[in-house]
C-alpha cells in the first residue's frame, strides 16, 4: 500500500510539472500580445509598451520566464491577474464553488439516472426500454453541447418561461455567500424564494452538463452488467432463491460498479471541459467562464494558473477514484 502511494505521488508530481509546462506554453502559442490587448483600442506609446514588457518580464528568454513561473508555482504563488491585479489563487477560490456546485449537481444527476438506467437496460436486454435507452444514450453522447443548451433555453426559458436564462440567483435576492454554494447559502439566508431561485438557475446548466456523462455512465453500466450477469456467481445467487432486485441490484451491480467507477472518474475531466462551455452559455460565474474570458484578454497568469488548478482538481478526483476502487473491489483492498 505504501509503495502504491509513493508511486502515485511521483506520478502526481510528474504530471504536475507537465501540466505547468503545457499551460505555460498553451497561452503563448495563441497569437496576440497581452500588453497590446491590455491597452485596448486606445493603443499606447512605444516607451510605455517597453516599460510594461519589462515590468511583466516578457523581455526575458522564454526559458527564464518558465523557470520563474515554475518556482513561483512550487512556492504556492500563481501570480496576479493582468486585468484585475488580484492574485490568481484568490480569484480561483472565489469562483470555484460555483463550478463545483454545477459539476457536482451534474455528476450526481448523471450517476443517479445513468446507473439505474444501465441496470434496467441490461436486465431487459433487447427489449423496448433497452433499445430506447441505448439510442438516446447515443444521441446524448454525440449531441453538440452548444446546440443542446440553446434548444433547452429556447423551450424552457423562452417558450415556457420556467427557468431563467443566465446567472446563479434572481436579482431580487441579495445575501452573503459564506460557502459559495448557492443552494446552501440561499437556505442559510432565510430569504423565502431564494432557494427555489437557486434551483431554477441550476436546472438547465446541470442538464446540459450532465448529458454526456449520463450517456457514458448508462452505457458503461449496461455493458458491465451484461458481462457480470453471465457470471457463475450470479447463477449461484439465483440458485439460492434470492429476489431479482437483490441479484441485479446487489450481487451484479456491486461487481459491475468496478468498471463504472473508472468511467465516472474519467468523466470528471470531460465534465470540467464541458463546464467551461456550459458556464459561458449560461453566464455562470464559475472558473470556466473566468478562464474563457481570460483567454480572450490574454491574461497569461489566469489562464496558466486556472488550467493548472483544474488539472490538480482532476488529479485529486482520480486519486479518490482509485481509493474508491479499492473500497469496492476486495481483490485490490486485501492485496498485500
Amino acid at each position, binding site marked *: 500500500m505504501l509503495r502504491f502511494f509513493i508511486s502515485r505521488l511521483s506520478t502526481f508530481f510528474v504530471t504536475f510539472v507537465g501540466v505547468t509546462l503545457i499551460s505555460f506554453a498553451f497561452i503563448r502559442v495563441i497569437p496576440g500580445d497581452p500588453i497590446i490587448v491590455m491597452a485596448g483600442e486606445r493603443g499606447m506609446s512605444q516607451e510605455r509598451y517597453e516599460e510594461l514588457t519589462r515590468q511583466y518580464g516578457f523581455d526575458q528568454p522564454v526559458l527564464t520566464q518558465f523557470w520563474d513561473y515554475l518556482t513561483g508555482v512550487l512556492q504556492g504563488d500563481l501570480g496576479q491577474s493582468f486585468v484585475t491585479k488580484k492574485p490568481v489563487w484568490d480569484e480561483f477560490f472565489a469562483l470555484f464553488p460555483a463550478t463545483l456546485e454545477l459539476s457536482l449537481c451534474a455528476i450526481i444527476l448523471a450517476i443517479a439516472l445513468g446507473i439505474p438506467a444501465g441496470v434496467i437496460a441490461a436486465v431487459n436486454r433487447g427489449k423496448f426500454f433497452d433499445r430506447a435507452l441505448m439510442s438516446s444514450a447515443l444521441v446524448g453522447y454525440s449531441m453538440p453541447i452548444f446546440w443542446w443548451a440553446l434548444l433547452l433555453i429556447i423551450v424552457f426559458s423562452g417558450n415556457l418561461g420556467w427557468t431563467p436564462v443566465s446567472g446563479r440567483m434572481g436579482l431580487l435576492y441579495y445575501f452573503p455567500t459564506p460557502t459559495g454554494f448557492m443552494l446552501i447559502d440561499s437556505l442559510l439566508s432565510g430569504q423565502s424564494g431564494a432557494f427555489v431561485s437557486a434551483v431554477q438557475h441550476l436546472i438547465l446548466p446541470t442538464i446540459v452538463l450532465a448529458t454526456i456523462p449520463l450517456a457514458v455512465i448508462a452505457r458503461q453500466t449496461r455493458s458491465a452488467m451484461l458481462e457480470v450477469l453471465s457470471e*457463475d456467481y450470479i447463477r449461484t445467487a439465483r*440458485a439460492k432463491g434470492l429476489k431479482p432486485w437483490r441479484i441485479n441490484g446487489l450481487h451484479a451491480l456491486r461487481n459491475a460498479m468496478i468498471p463504472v467507477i473508472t468511467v465516472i472518474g474519467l468523466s470528471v475531466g470531460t465534465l470540467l471541459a464541458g463546464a467551461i462551455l456550459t458556464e459561458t452559455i449560461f453566464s455562470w460565474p464559475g472558473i470556466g467562464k473566468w478562464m474563457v474570458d481570460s483567454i480572450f484578454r490574454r491574461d497569461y497568469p489566469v489562464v496558466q494558473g486556472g488550467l493548472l488548478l483544474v488539472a490538480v482538481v482532476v488529479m485529486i478526483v482520480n486519486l479518490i477514484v482509485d481509493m474508491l476502487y479499492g473500497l469496492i473491489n476486495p481483490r485490490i483492498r486485501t492485496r498485500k
Partner: protein
Amino acid sequence: MALLNIRNLSVEFATGGGSFRAVDGVDVTVDGGEVLAIVGESGSGKSVSMLAAMGLLPWTATVTADELSFDGRDLRDLSASARRKVIGREISMIFQEPMSSLNPCFTVGFQIREALKQHLKLDSSARKKRALELMEMVGIPAPEKRLTAFPHQLSGGMNQRVMIAMAIACDPKLLIADEPTTALDVTIQAQILDLLTGLQRDTGMGLILITHDMGVVAETAHRVAVQYAGWKVEDQPVETLFDTPHHPYTAALLAALPERATERRLPTIPGVVPGQFDRPQGCLFSPRCAHADDLCRSTVPPVQSAALGRARCHYPLSVPAKEKVQ
C-alpha cells in the same frame, strides 16, 4: 412417490446456428435419501438437465417436460416467487467451479448468512451462529476467521466447502452437485466427496451427483443414470451396472476405466460426443459404437425395459436370447 420426478425432459437452445436440442427426452427420478449419479462425457446434457429442473437456464432455453415435480409439487407452473421458496431451500445446487461460483465482492460469511436470511426466520445473531455451525459442519478450519474472508483469499477446496455450507444452510431435501470436484486437486477431490456423502448420510437428503468418475460412482452412488448427447442411455442400480452394463456406451465407459477403477481418470472412448452440427441420424452413439449396423444408423433406438437398464439401444448387451426385444 419419488422426491424429484422428471419425465421426458427436453431443452432446446436458440442459438445463432438455429435451435439446438441439448437434452432430449430425459427421465430423472430420485427418492429421498437416495444417491443418484449421473455420468457421461462432457457435453451430454447433464448440467443442462439439472439447471432446467432448478429453473436456472438462460432465456435462450426452452424447457418442456411431461412431468417436472418436486415433493409432489409441479415445478412447471410455479410462479417466480413460489419457485424461490423451493429453490435454495428445499433443492439446492453446487457447481463445478467453486472459485467463480462465489461472489468476489462479498465475504463468505455474508454469502452464507444471506441464504439463511432469504429462507429462514432467524434474527441476525442466530444467523451468525448458524453460519459458524455450518462452517464447522463442512470442515473449514478456523471458521470464525474464515467467515470474514473473501473468496479469493481461500483455496478452491475451501470455496467448495463454503458452497456446500451455503447449499445445506436450510436443510434441503435434495442437493444437486454438478461435478463438484472436477476443478479441484486430486487429494482435495476425495475429501469433498467424503464430505458430501457424509452429509447425505447424516441428513438423509437426496443427492444427485454429476460426475465423470466411475470410481466415485462405484463408491458413493445407489443408482446410476448414463447420459449421452442429450439422451439418457441407461439407468441402473449401481450393484448391477458394473457387472452387466446394457448399453454399449456404458460398457465402453467401463472398459475404458484403467484396470476397472483402480486409478481415477477420465474414461476415454475414441471419438467425441456429437455437438450441434454433427448429430448423426438414428442412434446418436452409432458413429462410435462397435455394434452399430444399418438399423442403428437410420432409426432412433427405443428405450428398453427396466430389466434391461432402460437402455436406449437396438441391441442391448448381456441379454439372454429369449428376452431380446426388437
